[in-house]
């Protein structure tokens, strides 16, 4: 089991390293990687701690603005921009978490959603975010003042290195004693309390780590795409990351990777897919599919919640465990 997982990760990494030479558009793959990091960070909270934050857009979008500002207005180097964005995510996460863990369950989700909406309104009104236009043409600059990131290929490998490092950090966190306590809180909070764990501190720390890494994802996105916009702070981005995690598999390390790829591909390619279906089936209605991404997203949510709660990777892992169990007999 573990061997299969390691081999799969190895293949994935090799594929990602080779991707630019296999005809994949580097900027698109980088965008997917940013969302994959975002979803992994989110899953640390939802999948491993059992806290449904509905406000992660604030970390993604807020940090995107901070990085954009640092790079464009202050003209600092990219690594400082990323660090600033990550720190902003952590600080905002500290405030959100500190307020939200005062309430349990469904209230937690509503509070994070409301707080994120506040950040959205601030971003809409504040001067430094550029309002409706967002921050445009953010320069990539030179990494450490040395490596020019202007070329997509250089940028690609830097982004890959950052995302892989962050993923390893998340994997390490999940398997550490700290991660085990988080799982314990998720499974049975009263028992974790009775065992003497200061549950709220664990939750808060998990929240801050998740927010910081979401901030890193947002910062990287700004660096790669060269803009920061309102759509990243809007609550729909929070909904999107929930969907990615749910589709991929809650509480699995690989789930958010798969889920984010599926969701980003879907949103980018659904128009083409609709045109294709319309041509093959002759039903004209399909060609309007591209305009109804929202409805398709909604439908996936409904189907996932009702019939597919384990997600893609959750189902695969469950299947392999069942098979593995049988062969032992």
């Amino acid at each position: 089991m573990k061997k299969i997982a390691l081999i799969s990760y190895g293949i994935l990494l090799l594929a990602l390293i080779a991707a630019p030479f296999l005809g994949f558009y580097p900027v698109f793959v980088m965008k997917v990687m940013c969302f994959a990091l975002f979803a992994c960070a989110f899953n640390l909270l939802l999948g491993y701690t059992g806290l449904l934050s509905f406000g992660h857009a604030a970390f993604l979008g807020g940090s995107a603005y901070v990085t954009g500002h640092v790079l464009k207005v202050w003209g600092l180097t990219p690594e400082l921009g990323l660090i600033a964005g990550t720190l902003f995510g952590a600080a905002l996460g500290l405030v959100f978490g500190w307020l939200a863990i005062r309430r349990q369950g469904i209230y937690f989700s509503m509070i994070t959603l409301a707080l994120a909406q506040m950040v959205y309104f601030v971003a809409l009104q504040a001067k430094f975010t550029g309002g409706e236009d967002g921050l445009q043409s953010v320069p990539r600059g030179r990494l450490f003042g040395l490596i020019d990131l202007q070329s997509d290929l250089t940028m690609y490998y830097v982004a890959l290195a950052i995302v892989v490092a962050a993923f390893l950090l998340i994997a390490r966190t999940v398997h550490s004693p700290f991660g085990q306590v988080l799982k314990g809180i998720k499974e049975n909070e009263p028992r974790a309390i009775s065992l003497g764990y200061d549950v709220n501190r664990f939750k808060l720390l998990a929240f801050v780590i998740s927010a910081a890494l979401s901030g890193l994802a947002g910062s990287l996105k700004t660096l790669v795409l060269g803009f920061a916009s309102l759509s990243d702070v809007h609550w729909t981005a929070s909904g999107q990351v929930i969907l990615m995690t749910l589709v991929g598999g809650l509480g699995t390390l690989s789930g958010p990777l798969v889920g984010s790829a599926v969701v980003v591909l879907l949103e980018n390619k659904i128009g083409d897919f609709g045109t294709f279906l319309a041509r093959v089936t002759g039903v004209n209605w399909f060609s309007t599919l591209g305009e109804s991404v929202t409805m398709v997203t909604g439908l996936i949510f409904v189907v996932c919640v009702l019939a597919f709660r384990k997600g893609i990777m959750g189902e695969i892992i469950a299947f392999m465990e069942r098979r593995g169990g049988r062969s032992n007999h």
Partner: protein
Amino acid sequence: MQISMPALLSQLLLGLVNGSFYAILSLGLAVIFGLLNVINFAHGALFMMGAVLTWMAMNYFEINYWVMLVAAPLIVGVFGVVIERLLLRWIYKLDHLYGLLLTLGLTLLIEGFFRSIYGVSGLAYDVPDALSGAFNLGFMILPKYRAWVVVASLIVCFATWYAIEKTRLGAYLRAGTENPRLVEAFGINVPLMITLTYGFGVALAAFAGVLAAPVIQISPLMGQNLIIIVFAVVVIGGMGSIMGAILTGLGLGVIEGLTKVFYPEASSTVVFLIMMLVLLVRPAGLFGNEK
């Protein structure tokens, strides 16, 4: 800072109008959550549906406002019953979060559907003739329609409060909220009660939508921002008390209206700021009774 009395009073009234919508919506959320343990994210979308149905009835069939004031909640209520029977009932035994996610999916479906027809631009709806114009009270001009919204909302809110707190049916409902299995053992059809409660809760949202049609620009996305504010209202008030939901909704609407006069920049965030304050001072909410 010079603020004229009429401007202040008119913002106060506008705040009361918005507060009425908050009150009706948070009331519906509280009733649904009490029995179903589901936070109905689709509440905003169903509010929008009430308004859009009203607009459609006028534009396609020339059915007037007063008919829709009854018909739209009925249609949306039936729609809610269908949703509950087909989808929601499968998830009651699961973690709360699945209820939120399922209704989020429904929201996207409903809003996406109306968006594919009407786009995102606003649709205009005229104030019904009987309520157009204004009363001149001497110290301020009181638009009839706004007064009507506040009065109608208050009547509906207090009728709901009365039905839940003072009647036999309400007693069943409250008992069902406390202990559904015991209530079922007394021979009451709890699943039916749950279905009708959801239908009633979303009908309230549609009623608010009809009231809002002439005063808020009708668009498929009109419910989105509103529902998030209503969530904050619910966090501030706590969902344990019907009266609490009503008072919190109205009060926050008024505060928001006053903020528009004194510090307009903060008018869109003031409810969230108050939520933060309440979380610091009284984490369970003003009327909350959870631990």
